[in-house]
Every structure is written in structure tokens, then in C-alpha cells.
């Protein structure tokens, strides 16, 4: 891959573009750009990887929180698509496990180091002629009338996340034989020979206050993206009270107890309409609820909401009436109708992207079973609501082009699990 032209981009965009390109030369260019041959000072990981939580998705305790107590995801993300190159056997499992442990030894589990998961698709489990035992993991399918997505039909996916762009690049390079050392630690085992990377399925992104506004030189990202917005759509997300807990999304029974399922939908977002054509009142109505807009509950980027999305039972239950009598419903209020006993079903770890040089979102959600995701998406579709599509939350602005379902096994089973590891 060719490296981006440094002279044509802002520093942040250049680094973002390097993460998007990936590989050893992008890594060294990234280290140059951050101004140090050795890169940033990154804390090392643990000598005893077995001491890490059994749940691969147990990130929250290791992540920072904002002043309101909302969990903050790392700034930089890479999704590495993997195709299995070998038979699944003990040797391949051992290689995989040792390669992943190398990352855990090299990097502290957290923002300054690295957090990651590896997940497996239904296509991976096809070789066992069985679905993973006691896990709801169907093949991906379209979840709305107006979409014709492609599907993640490769075998596995690594999700790498860090506040340091050079760390996600280096970790990936180390796993695929492009780097002898990761954070100073020698790479003895990598994934070469077990997995091939699918470069054209590699996805990248970012999250965090101000990052979206750094990308206004990308076509389709208007100057109107607020300076302090953490997401492209201009508002905070991931409010504590609208996120499922890690417990809530963890598989409780069967051989994969301690694991979770992951759905990733990748989509383009039309920000031109969102920012240049609509007003703040309309954006708040469509993203949260008309009452959020009427009562000015959000502040300019959602900061006034604190740790709560402000979705009271009343506001959730008002969805149908808001549609019929107000002509608009909010995305958040509508999706919250899928809550179970008042509890959200999804733990969102989504992030924005400019992959393909246009603004988008990789919507990564964890849930106990994919059926929970489908339930939320159906609530979001709002086919039952008497409202114009353009005013039906944010559907008008989103264009899903890819979906994938994954099992994130518990850490002890993360290396090439069979469909029923207990048998």
C-alpha cells in the first residue's frame, strides 16, 4: 500500500491515514510523525497473562471514565480480518495463543497499552459442521428493508484498540511477522502460517473528543462538526445508563460461558445533510427525542446529559405518540424500547471512520446473543411507527454496507475453538 502524502494532510489526519494503511512502513512513518524513533512511552504488560480476566471483553475496569463516570474507549481502533490458513489442530491453537500472549506481555491492558479481542464468525464454525454450542450466532442477514449489505464471511477478526496509533500498528505488524519486537519485547511466535490477513477487509477508526472535527478535510465531513464532539454525529454516546454492563452481555451457560457475541455493522453516514441542512433542534429530536429538543436537555454536544441519556420510561413509552403527533421520533428513545426490564441489551464499542475517504461508523456491539442485537435493530427500524422515514430517528443518514456476527469466546478458549469445546 502507498503511504499517504504527509504534506497534504494535517498531522492528525496523516496519522489517522497511516493507521488506515497499516503495515511496517506505516508504523515507521507513524513513529516519525509522533516524533520519536522508539515511539511513545508505552507501559509493558503482564508477565502472567493468565492473570487477565477470563472474559476477553472485560475492558471496562481497565478503561478510563469521564467526569460523569462514562467509560471512555481508546482513541484508535483497528479491525483485522483473518482467514484461516491451516487445519484447526493443537499446534495451530498453541501458535495462536502464544502470539496473542505476546501482545499481553508487551502492552499494559488499557488505554496507554492495548486492549483487544479475537472473535470467530459462523463461517469459521462451518468447518465443524455445527454452530457454537449454546450460543446464538446466526449467519448475518439484512436487518432493514433498505439495506443490501455484504457479510463478514472470513473466519475471524481481531479488534485492537489503544490511545496510541503506533501501538495498534505495531501490535498488528508484530502478529504478522513485520516487526521483530513489540514494545521492546521480542516476538517469538506470530500468527503467520495460521492466519492470513485480508487487507481489503481491514477497517480502522477513532473516537474521542475532538477527533471527528480533525477530519473536516475529508470529503463529506462538514466544517460544522462541533470541535469537542466525540462522534461524527456531534454528540456523546455510550452514556452509562444506556450501555449494558459486561455481565449483561456475557454468555452464562454452556461451554462458551464467559464469552459474548459481537455484531459489527459498517455504514456510511451522510453528515452533510445532518450538519449543513438540519438545525440543532432537529438533530436533538432525531438523535434523542423530541422532548430532549423541546426541553433543551443535551447541551451542544450532549455534555448536559452527564451519565444519562435522559431516556426516562415516559420518554421511551412516548415513542409512538411522538411519531404520530409530533412527526419525529428520536433514535435513542426508539431503540430503548428493546430494553429488558429497563436494562439495555447492548454494550456499544463503536467508533467512527473515514475508511474509503468518507465518513462512516463501525458499529461494534456486544450482547449475550445476536438475537438481542436484532431486537434492538428492529426497535430502531421502527416499522411500526407512523412517521416519515426522514424523521424516523437517524435512519435517513445511515447506509449500512456490511454486517458480521462473531463469537468472542472466553479467553481460555480464544485460540481456534471447536464448536463444542467440552465434547
Amino acid at each position, binding site marked *: 500500500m502507498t503511504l499517504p502524502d504527509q504534506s497534504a494532510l494535517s498531522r492528525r489526519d496523516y496519522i489517522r491515514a497511516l493507521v488506515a494503511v497499516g503495515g511496517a512502513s506505516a508504523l515507521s512513518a507513524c513513529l516519525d510523525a509522533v516524533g520519536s524513533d522508539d515511539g511513545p512511552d508505552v507501559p509493558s504488560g503482564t508477565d502472567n497473562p493468565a492473570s487477565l480476566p477470563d472474559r476477553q471483553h472485560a475492558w471496562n475496569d481497565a478503561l478510563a471514565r469521564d467526569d460523569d463516570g462514562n467509560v471512555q474507549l481508546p482513541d484508535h481502533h483497528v479491525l483485522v480480518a483473518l482467514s484461516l490458513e491451516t487445519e484447526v489442530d493443537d499446534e495451530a491453537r498453541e501458535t495462536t495463543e502464544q502470539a496473542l500472549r505476546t501482545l499481553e506481555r508487551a502492552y499494559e491492558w488499557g488505554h496507554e497499552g492495548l486492549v483487544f479481542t479475537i472473535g470467530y464468525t459462523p463461517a469459521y464454525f462451518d468447518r465443524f459442521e455445527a454452530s457454537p454450542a449454546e450460543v446464538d450466532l446466526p449467519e448475518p442477514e439484512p436487518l432493514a428493508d433498505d439495506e443490501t449489505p455484504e457479510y463478514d464471511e472470513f473466519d475471524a477478526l481481531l479488534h485492537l484498540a489503544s490511545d496510541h496509533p503506533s501501538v495498534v500498528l505495531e501490535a498488528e505488524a508484530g502478529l504478522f511477522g513485520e516487526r521483530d519486537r513489540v514494545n521492546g519485547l521480542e516476538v517469538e511466535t506470530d500468527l503467520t502460517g495460521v492466519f492470513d490477513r485480508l487487507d481489503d477487509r481491514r477497517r480502522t477508526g477513532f473516537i474521542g473528543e475532538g477527533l471527528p472535527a480533525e477530519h473536516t478535510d475529508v470529503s*463529506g465531513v462538514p466544517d460544522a462538526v462541533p470541535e469537542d464532539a466525540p462522534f461524527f454525529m456531534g454528540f456523546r454516546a455510550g452514556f452509562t445508563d444506556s450501555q449494558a454492563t459486561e455481565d449483561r452481555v456475557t454468555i452464562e451457560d454452556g461451554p462458551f460461558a464467559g464469552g459474548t457475541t459481537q455484531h459489527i455493522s459498517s455504514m456510511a453516514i451522510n453528515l452533510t445533510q445532518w450538519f449543513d441542512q438540519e438545525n440543532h433542534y432537529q438533530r436533538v429530536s432525531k438523535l434523542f427525542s423530541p422532548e430532549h429538543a423541546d426541553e433543551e436537555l443535551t447541551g451542544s454536544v450532549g455534555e448536559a446529559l452527564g451519565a444519562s441519556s435522559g431516556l426516562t420510561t415516559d420518554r421511551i413509552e412516548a415513542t409512538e405518540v411522538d411519531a404520530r403527533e409530533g412527526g419525529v421520533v428520536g433514535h435513542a428513545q426508539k431503540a430503548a424500547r428493546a430494553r429488558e426490564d429497563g436494562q439495555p441489551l447492548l454494550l456499544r464499542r463503536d467508533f467512527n471512520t473515514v475508511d474509503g475517504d468518507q465518513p462512516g461508523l463501525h458499529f461494534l456491539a456486544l450482547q449475550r446473543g445476536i438475537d438481542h442485537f436484532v431486537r434492538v435493530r428492529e426497535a430502531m427500524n421502527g416499522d411500526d411507527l407512523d412517521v416519515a422515514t426522514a424523521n424516523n430517528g437517524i435512519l435517513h443518514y445511515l447506509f449500512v454496507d456490511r454486517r458480521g456476527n462473531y463469537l468472542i469466546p472466553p479467553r481460555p478458549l480464544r485460540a481456534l475453538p471447536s464448536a463444542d469445546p467440552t465434547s
Partner: protein
Amino acid sequence: MQETNAINRRTFVSYTAATAGVLALAGCADTDGTDTDDTDTDDTAEDDLETMPEFLEVEDPPDAVYVPTHREAMRMLEPVEAGDMMVAPMLSYPHPFWIVAGTGADSLERTDPEDDRGVHMMFTVWDRETGVVLPVDDGAQIQVERDGESVGSPVSPWTMISQEMGFHFGDNVSLPEDGTYTVEVTLPPLSTRTTGDLEGRLEESATATFEFTYDDEFRHEVVGGVEYFDEDIWGERGALEPMDHGEHGHGDDGHDHGDHDDHGDHEEGHNHDHEDHDDHADHDGHDDEHDHDDGHDHGDHDEHDHHAVPYSALPEIDAYPGTILVDPEEGDVPDVTEDLPESGDARFLATVLESDHRLAEAEAYLLVSPRTPYNRVPLADMSMTATVERDGEVLEESALEQTIDGTYDLHYGASVPELEAGDTVTIETETPPQVARHQGYETAFLEMPLLELQVPEQ
């Protein structure tokens, strides 16, 4: 002289009076409220002509359909097939329009083009079998491409109404440079309730692709083709006639725009000299394509290749069966849409179909068809509730469901008990039409008070 030059550059029809006839106004009920204040015409940067003409505004327009400042020029492309539907693309220059989201004071937003290089991209969609224009927002999408590469993000175009184009999908689309662009249109399955010849149809997603070239010739045609009207009539109540009168009717004669000549005869106490509007002799021939002869010699349109594009006009009153509900004060069914009962300047055709009609089930069927007053453009994505009363007692309160019928096109319907003469039906508009508007429609159909109708004496 500066001003005169500016006018000529923009093919002002004329800056003197007595040329109103060229407008071919479709109805013109009122001359009050015309604002002739100081809208400057001479502060235009000359280079605007290249890509985007000046957008002149009417100061303080009425809360009603009004005559805009200009007639937009556009290029019509050859209609393309999309499954069982046809898509007719139309391209104009980028210009402001108004989007509607909700009911409150902040629910209307004027949106200006982000970029003067580009087009206002529009398309009308209709069912090939019935010719019915599909006037609802079920989530159409477009992606503009050039040399196989996406240009900008995908877009869900807005549903819009315009006096010239009627109901259409559209948005301003920025184009980075001159060249040939490909547009892919995706139409999702129709999720709106359908009846009659449309029932059970259009349930598949469909796509269509068209191409266009953005270049000097295009700009010459559409930017140079803008027709500014005499300031005296800006903001008058009335509307431009549809730019294209498709022969593609709904099986009724509702497309006979000669009807509009009659507006002067519908006395509403306005002292308006309608003769002006019939007088085309003053038309100074800037552009014969715009010679909207009130007699509507459709032969004219054969010169263009787009005579088969239907305009989204709903049928005229006499095309509807059943008992047409009337204004209790008037008592009679009018002849033309303009004289129907109104709310928010929308006209309401409401009829009760007896239980033997195909649209009725066990009970009678209340069909409510709100439309623009002059061009009968359907008003989509409203929500309304009808309350039926007899002798002061409520018989039924029904939410009306948006429906597209193979004969009557867009309407809102509900089952109601069999009604008797003297029963009243009150229409409460909870949500006004959630469709974007071109100039001349943005102040109408927003505040829509209760409308009381009555079953007339037979």
C-alpha cells in the same frame, strides 16, 4: 444601468408591469400582501451566473401558497426503469429549500447549498402499470459516482414539493468538477399501505442508474434558463403551473390545466384582474419552452423528450366517488380543488365511500385527500385523526392511515360507520406534511387548524 444589466443577464422576463401573463399562474386568488420592498437585484456577483443564480426572496410572504420570485430551469433526463417503477431524473442548479421535521417552531429549516458547484438533483418515481406517482418517503437512496469512484457520501434524498415539479425526491449535490457522473438510485420496498391496483405490488427493492454531464452547456441551460418574475407579483397567492404536463394521467381529465383559467370565475370577492394572466401577447419570447399557453397545446411538449413524465397531480373532485364532505357553511360540493375546504392553505377532498365500494370493508370508508390548492400536489406524511359526530355525539374517532391507491393515489383512510346527512367529520391534523418545500410552498401547510366537514343533504 447596473440594475438593467443585471436583469438582462438573468433573462428577467421584463422589468415593467403587464407581463404577468407569462407566468401562466395556476390560480391567483389574491393580490394582497405583495411585497415590493427593496429586494436588491444589483448586488449579485457576476460569477454567480456560472454555477448558481441569485436566489431572490419574497419579504414577508403569506402563510399560504404564493408565487415565487422565479421559475427554476432544469434539464430533464430520459426516465429509467427501476423494477416495476420508472424514475424520471431532473437536474437544476443548487438552491435553497426548506426541510420539515416535526411540528414546533423549530421544525422548519431553510437549507442553503453547501457549494455552488453542483446540481439540485431531483427525481420523480411512478408505478409503470398504473402511472401513479409514488409520493411518500420510504427511504430512497442515491449514490453519485464518477469513474467508478463514489462522489461524496450516499444520500437519502428529501421528499419535496415544488410548484413546477410537484412531488419529487431531491437534494443539492456538490460536484467537485465538470464531467460525467453516474447516479445509482435505490428504491426500497414500498412500506406504505397500498390499495386497488397497487395492492400487493412494489414490494421488492429496485435500482436504477442514470448519467449526466455537468459542464458549461449544462450551466448555460439551467442557470441561464432561470426566469425571474416581475416583482409586483412575488408573494401573491397563487402558484406556477407545473412545468410539464404529462399526458400520463390517472385516468381522469384532471390534467386539463385549462381549468386554471377559470380561477377568475370562482368569485371569492377578490378584485383581481385575471385577464392579465390570460394575456400572453406580452410574452416577449425569451424562451418558447416556457410559453405556457393556457390552452395547453400539448403538442408543444412533443418537442421535448419528456412528455411521458407524469406530474403528481391528484385527480380533480369529480373523479372521486361517494359522498363528498362539504364545508358546513357552504353546503355544496365545489367544482374545483381550489374551492374545497381548507386548513393551512391545503385543500381537503374528503369522501365517504359506502360499504359496497372496494376500499370499504364492513363499514364505510372515509377517504381524505389533502392537496395543494392549485396544482393538486399530494401532501404526504401527515398524520390526521377524524372524529365523526351525529347530533353532538361522537360516533367514532379514527386515526387516518396513509395509503396509496391505484386510482386515487395518495390519501389517508379509515373505516367509519355509515354516515347520514348532517353528520360532521372533524379532521385534526396532528402532523403537517413532513416533506421539504421549494420556494412558494414553505409557508403553507404548517399550521393546520381543525377542519370541520359535514355530510351534505343529498
